[in-house]
């Protein structure tokens, strides 16, 4: 999901748009039947710039074409909304990344603990066995000594 927004960010959106608002109204008037434009860029261009595999998402975002009553106000409002959407999208993506990173860290920790546990248990068994063997050997020796007593 994240790859759609690769390369598209709030900052890149700002860099690409021209500064004068007059050009916005010109572009809007020139292409009345096309998609609403933001900052001189057509929505289609904006989407295709980001990633090659955009086909399905491009169609989903197409807005019905209509002539805005107050060109400057409308485009400014649309622009603000678009900025907010971008902001929200980035924030959501950061939040998802945070959640994933936390989960990954937990999984790593669990794996590490399991293997440590396994190693420690194995070591414990080995040591216990060694202690037992030592005890057996010790008792055997004492018994033999009493058996072989001359009297």
């Amino acid at each position, binding site marked *: 999901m994240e790859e759609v927004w690769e390369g598209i960010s*709030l900052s890149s959106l700002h860099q690409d748009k021209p500064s004068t608002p007059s050009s916005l109204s010109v572009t809007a008037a020139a292409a009345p039947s096309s998609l609403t434009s933001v900052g001189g860029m057509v929505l289609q261009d904006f989407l295709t710039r980001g990633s090659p595999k955009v086909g399905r998402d491009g169609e989903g975002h197409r807005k019905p074409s209509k002539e805005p009553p107050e060109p400057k106000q409308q485009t400014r409002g649309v622009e603000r909304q678009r900025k907010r959407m971008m*902001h929200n999208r*980035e*924030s959501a993506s*950061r939040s998802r*990344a*945070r*959640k*994933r*990173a*936390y989960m*990954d*860290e937990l*999984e*790593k*920790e*669990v*794996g590490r*603990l*399991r*293997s440590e*546990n*396994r190693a420690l*248990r*194995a070591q414990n068994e080995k040591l216990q066995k060694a202690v037992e063997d030592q005890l057996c050997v010790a008792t055997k020796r004492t018994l033999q000594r009493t058996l072989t007593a001359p009297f």
Partner: protein
Amino acid sequence: MYSPPLRPINRGSSCTSALPNTNYLVAPLPFTFSEQKVMARLSDPLVVGRVIGEVIDTFNPTMKMIVTYNCNKLVCNGHELYPSAVVSKPRVEVQGGDMRSFFTLVMTDPDVPGPSDPYLREHVHWIVTDIPGTTDASFGKEVLSYESPRPSIGIHRFIFVLFQQKRRQSVAAAPATRDRFSTRRFAEDNDLGLPVAAVYFNGQRETAARRR
């Protein structure tokens, strides 16, 4: 039933907190060793959390670094710590290397003033150099004193990066300002190379809404 929080706060317990008791003697290995290595690369919290990429480059973690606040709060990647818990400098243990190798620690926050618009990226909180291997940061020279994290906007990442120095006293001087710091540039200027260890935690305003 209370559901587990999305961003759990590390209160007095470490990452290695107790897991529920299991009755098996030998745990079956879930993945082969090579699979584990591949998985580690794919789901590295440092990559997923965008630490590798925005602050440092991909590196090979050759040293083990353990950062602990207040003797009991261990810093784990992506875990959250309250600002009140990180007021004083943590204990940073460098495990690995020997007494003759020296390390530099940098603590930085790339999300200043806020993660959605970090125009002051990065803000450096702490720089310690000449830390001898197998010891901790208190044995090094504090080039830049520890500044308590006080995030005001959003959720910040606070990253500890450890570099191995090529020789002793190789770090020149502290930067003039803490803002607009660049860990990459700092490493380049002081010939530190790629990091050898990194860990980060998340932090936000003390009174921020955490469980919406």
